[in-house]
């Protein structure tokens, strides 16, 4: 009862927030030159045009494919390396310079370098995304492993859990929460990285379409692609990540 009231109230305020953004946008578009600031209605028309002509779906699929592969490779590498480094101090020390470099080098530099090496296209975008994403997942996983309750680890050792069970019964479930947080962060980073990489290093995808709309001085399309990006993020966050998190951390819910 309490819960549903609060969550209703929350969605109400969230809806008000969205309305405020739309109102502000409308207001700005009335004041600012429409050549550089499309109104919500013009944007919606451009969006409908893109969806109708199937252009939207083509670019969306291309971007989605690169995003998912880049994220899977980057987050997967971060997770595996993070588990190894979290369990073994020597691995952690060994990887520390790489992690530092990964987090310090600006994304644009990685993108330009990848284009310099591999030219334009899918592989370049995926490479950039994976390289930008891995350190975040890695750091979350390492700190997750290190925060696993040492008493549970001791229990596992007393009962002679083999490595496979220590990992599957204690360490991996123990890091589920920070790993899910890391995955959410990584996904946000991956979306930004994908678009950046597509603007610079691809001839297709949402980022490239956005870049082209910009070159053509087509403000409604420019804004339409931004809306597409936000919608994509919303679907991923609310349609995939949140349900996944709820599933993975189910055991916590049942306590309530």
């Amino acid at each position, binding site marked *: 009862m309490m819960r549903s009231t609060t969550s209703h109230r929350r969605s109400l305020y969230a809806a008000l927030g969205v309305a405020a953004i739309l109102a502000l946008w409308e207001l700005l578009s009335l004041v600012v030159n429409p050549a550089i600031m499309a109104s919500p209605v013009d944007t919606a028309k451009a969006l409908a045009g893109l969806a109708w002509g199937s252009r939207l779906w083509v670019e969306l699929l291309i971007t989605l494919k690169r995003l998912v592969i880049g994220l899977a490779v980057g987050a997967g590498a971060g997770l595996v390396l993070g588990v190894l480094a979290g369990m073994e101090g020597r691995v952690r020390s060994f990887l520390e310079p790489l992690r530092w470099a990964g987090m310090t080098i600006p994304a644009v530099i990685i993108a330009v370098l990848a284009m310099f090496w591999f030219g334009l296209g899918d592989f370049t975008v995926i490479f950039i995304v994976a390289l930008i994403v891995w350190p975040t997942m890695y750091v979350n996983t390492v700190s997750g492993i290190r925060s696993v309750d040492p*008493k*549970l680890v*001791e*229990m*596992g*050792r*007393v*009962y*002679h*859990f*083999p490595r496979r*069970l220590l990992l599957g*019964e*204690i360490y991996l*479930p*123990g890091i*589920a929460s920070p790993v899910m947080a890391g995955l959410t962060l990584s996904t946000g980073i991956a979306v930004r990285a994908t678009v950046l990489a597509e603007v610079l290093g691809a001839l297709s995808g949402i980022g490239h379409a956005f870049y082209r709309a910009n070159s053509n001085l087509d403000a409604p399309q420019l804004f339409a692609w931004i809306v597409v990006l936000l919608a994509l993020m919303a679907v991923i966050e609310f349609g995939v990540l949140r349900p996944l998190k709820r599933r993975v951390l189910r*055991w*916590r819910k*049942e*306590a309530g």
Partner: protein
Amino acid sequence: MITFQNVSKAFDSLKVFNDLSLHVATGEILGVVGPSGSGKTTMLKLITGIVPPDTGTVTVAEGAVGYVFQEPRLLPWRTALDNVAGSLRAQGKDKAGARAAAAGWLERVGLAGFEGYHPAELSGGMAQRVSVARAFAVEPRILLLDEPFSSVDTVLKSSLMDILESIIRERRATVVYVTHDLGEARRLADRIVEIVPRRGVRELGA
């Protein structure tokens, strides 16, 4: 059978045991009492081998070890059933076999019907009973109990001790029962020793 031979153990400058020698015969139930911080938990950890002695040797008979910790120490993400089954899977039993045996032990400690509950859904006493079931499930030759009921209320404690006692009698494991309550020790143990801080142990008789 458990033998401590001239065992010394210190944590940094804190000497917990100095030249401790102690023998627990096969099938014997040894009660260990001593004030808080005297080294009771350390003694059990020395027996499991997860803490090595600085000098001397600890010899333990072959076979499975069951350990009931001071707190239930269950995996919060696993059900009561899978917490018990986990210790069996560690012995190489397959998942189905482990679960079947685990269900039997849960029933034995009075938790039939709670197999699917997660630890946070159980009361402290119920969680500790799961921990007892986990220790017995491995068919231990050595059973180590670290103040298993210190956080359980008096009424429940008595019924848990009954369960424990009946299982111990039928299994004939070698038992080290740690408690700071001499009365509890008297009820269960064949022999009682008291840990004298920084020295060793003193026999108290039964």
